[in-house]
């Protein structure tokens, strides 16, 4: 069964209009047209008349959960959410950054989304191997079934084949290329700290110029801050202008976390954020 992007766009518009007209929400986080068809942008519809500007196509990869934390608590928001995006919503609810009752989640079941820079399909690399949202109020299409389910960790094979030294060299090389534009943290739905630790001056955790030690400090700490929280949308890596495969590190940590604590990020509202939740039977492997 092929995905009908037109149908999803149509449904998205219909639901957005209904929600705005009824006053149930004060804004709808969706996608709008960018400078061409292949570059849609996040778009916030605030009035029923804005709804006509909404689009949805295979390039709408941005994770709109990023914008949830930009509005004051208690703002009523509807959000268009694909599988990974919905996990971000769940994770933010777990972290009590947003309240479930303030949200209307417009779930988008979809596969075959494409990277707008390369045109390459992103399913196998990111999106956690899921096609259907894990949380939604209204589903904007039919649930996807029968797609070959790939493990979210399959793409790690080549990375895991490297030994410790090779991995260290790999990251020194890759992170050494970072130009410190911070697009990764801007795109990330979980990077909501303001100020980010790396922007602080007292104490100064790392150099701010795009050079190796500071780059490592920024990224390794950011990876660490996202451990057990990264929901594998892949936005950081797509946002990166120099194509650093940040998702590899995140995935590796997510895999370790899942193996050690039996919990993947953002899968269930009832879960507690795994690294700040203590259970007597927690694995001690992390200490070894």
């Amino acid at each position, binding site marked *: 069964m092929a995905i009908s992007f037109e149908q999803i766009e149509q449904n998205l518009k219909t639901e957005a209009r209904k929600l705005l007209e009824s006053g149930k929400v004060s804004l709808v986080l969706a996608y709008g047209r960018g400078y061409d068809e292949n570059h849609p942008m996040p778009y916030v519809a605030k009035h029923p008349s804005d709804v006509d500007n909404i689009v949805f196509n295979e390039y709408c990869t941005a994770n709109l959960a990023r914008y949830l934390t930009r509005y004051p*608590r208690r703002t009523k928001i509807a959000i268009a959410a694909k599988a990974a995006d919905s996990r971000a919503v769940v994770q933010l609810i777990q*972290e*009590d*950054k947003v309240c479930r009752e303030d949200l209307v989640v417009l779930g988008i079941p979809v596969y075959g989304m494409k990277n707008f820079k390369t045109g390459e399909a992103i399913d196998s690399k990111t999106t956690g191997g899921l096609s259907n949202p894990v949380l939604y109020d209204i589903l904007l299409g039919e649930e996807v079934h029968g797609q070959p389910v790939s493990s979210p960790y399959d793409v790690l094979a080549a990375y895991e084949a490297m030994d410790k030294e090779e991995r260290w060299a790999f990251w020194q090389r890759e992170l050494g290329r970072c130009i410190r534009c911070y697009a990764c943290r801007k795109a990330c739905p979980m990077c*909501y*700290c*303001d*100020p*980010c*630790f790396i922007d*602080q001056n*007292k*104490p100064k*955790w790392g150099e701010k110029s795009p050079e190796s030690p500071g780059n490592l400090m920024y990224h390794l700490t950011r990876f660490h*801050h996202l451990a057990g929280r990264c929901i594998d949308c892949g936005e950081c890596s797509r946002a990166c202008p120099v194509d650093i495969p940040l998702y590899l590190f995140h995935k590796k940590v997510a895999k370790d976390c899942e193996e050690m604590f039996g919990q993947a990020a953002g899968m269930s509202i009832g879960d*507690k*954020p795994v*690294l*700040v*939740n*203590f259970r*007597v039977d927690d694995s001690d492997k992390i200490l070894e």
Partner: protein
Amino acid sequence: MSRIGVFVCHCGLNIAKTVRVSELAEFAATLPDVVVAKDYKFMCSTPGQEMIAHDIKAHRLDRVIVTACSPLMHEQTFRKVLAASGLNQYLLTIVNIREQVSWVTHDIDEGTAKAKALLNGAVRRARLLAPLTSRVIDVNSDVLVVGGGIAGIQAALELANTGKKVYLVEKNSTIGGHMAQFDKTFPTLDCSACILTPKMDSVLQHKNITLLTSCEVSEVKGFVGNFDITIRQKARYVDHTRCNACLACTEKCPGKAVSEWDEGLVKRKAIYIPFPQAVPQKPVIDRDACTFFKKGKCRLCEKVCEQKAIDFEQQDTFTTVKVGAVIVATGYDLMDTRALIQYGYGKYPGVYNALEVERLFNSAGPTGGKVTLRDGKEPQAIAILHCIGSRDKNNYEHCSRVCCMYSLKFAHLFKEKTSADVYQFYIDMRAAGKGYEEFYNRIIEEDVKFIRGKGARVAQSADEPDRLVVEAEDTITGKFIRLPVDMVVLSPAIIPRGDAKDIARLFNLSTDRYGFFMERHPKLAPLSTMSEGVFIAGVCQSPKDIPDTVAQANGAAAEALTIVVKDKMELEATTAMVNPASCCACQNCVRVCPYGAPFFNEAKGVSEINEALCKGCGLCASVCPPSAIIARHFTNDQVLAEMEGLLEF
């Protein structure tokens, strides 16, 4: 610019043996802002303290660094020196060069180098230290005792007799603990009930003791002087305010379950008291065994109860009490020896564990005090196997301490009550308590046979299928022996309660590698724990006999009293605070704090810390992504400066 004095202690040879102390002092003198550096034999002695006090004045010091033993030992000592000299006590830094340096190396070069690195870090941190003001808080004068065995009973009575109010929480329906299961107690062989039941009764009668049976602690909040303890009263389905203990109900009840008190040797009713002298002597309904709860029909007890005390609707209830100190006395379990299949416990009816045998001896036990096997016959030959699971690298390495003695007690009682031959299989005999060696000699005289060798296996006898054979190596003769017997008694390892980990978590206790609660210091603070205001007594700390348990209970009561006797106390100033400008409201701090100090202020959209609850552990600061939390005395700047100093080496 600060003016730092560094005082290097030799601790006799404890430190001086593996750290070149005078070289360390000379090195200290070269560090920034250090204006005086000295070494001395015993810094904690009176002349040592006077030297520091003198130098504070003479050199107008505003920071003092003592490189010596662990701050757990003498931080308070040296803080007092600073305070008496007019310096804020938080301007003291202790560098631990004993436990962390001299005691962990034999190499004096290595020791000296590490001491220098630690000191270099400490000087850098000391320069950034700020004076802090301790907090003074009100102290609640009541005490909570958890566990109503002999330890808990004794502690509760001692405290209550000083006029303090005590809450005694016991999870069973009666107090008494293991001691109430015994018939006689070694080494004096006095009757257990005769010495215990009067104490149990005093607990019930004491106006200062609130006895809470069928209760468990479900939540602990607060801190020394001000604990808020939530207690879950489990539904008993009998209203104890109405019940007059006539026990008519227990006679009529058709429900049956194995008696925990009699170690499963017999059955009891679904509505029951565990044993005749139980305190309180009022019954409870075991929901899982009750015919009404199982089948929806019965209610016989309700019909016979004239007091109308039966209440099938009863629910668990929760109450919160406020106390200033806590004594944990939750006792022990015996290891489940079914896991050691070579001894056949659970497989051969002739194999017993020690507590079952205690019940056989007891005149209120399942056999009325007669020693008979499960088939009703009297045993002709009995083997008592010591150290089952204890002193065993594959199971528990520790010695359970009382087994040698109670095994001797068993031998005596077997001799008294049967005509059987009694054999002891032991590794070596440990009889180190008062009157114990004498007791041992007395039992030797009683024609008990001692075989020095650990029982290796218990098997069914090939010739006489209803008898057992104990296999062992007699290490005196070097011979392998196979001894036919009718009864085998295992002395299993004494181990922590199954829920000890939960109790540890509730009260923030540490546990040793077996799960026994850890004392603050094995010699100098054996009843205190790392959780201030929480004390331990009895076997929950380590295996011991009743005299030691009672001594600990009295000690713990005295320790608790030192807290609740005052109406105010000083708390450490080293708490954490949130810088609201940096807080991103992730609430990590709220989630990780073991003391429930941080909370989310929804109106301001940031987290805040209730300083009264904060213990200054620093966990929150370490999980705060935008480093919005300032842990006083361990601020990021201070810690980073110390790290830089360390890493310079």
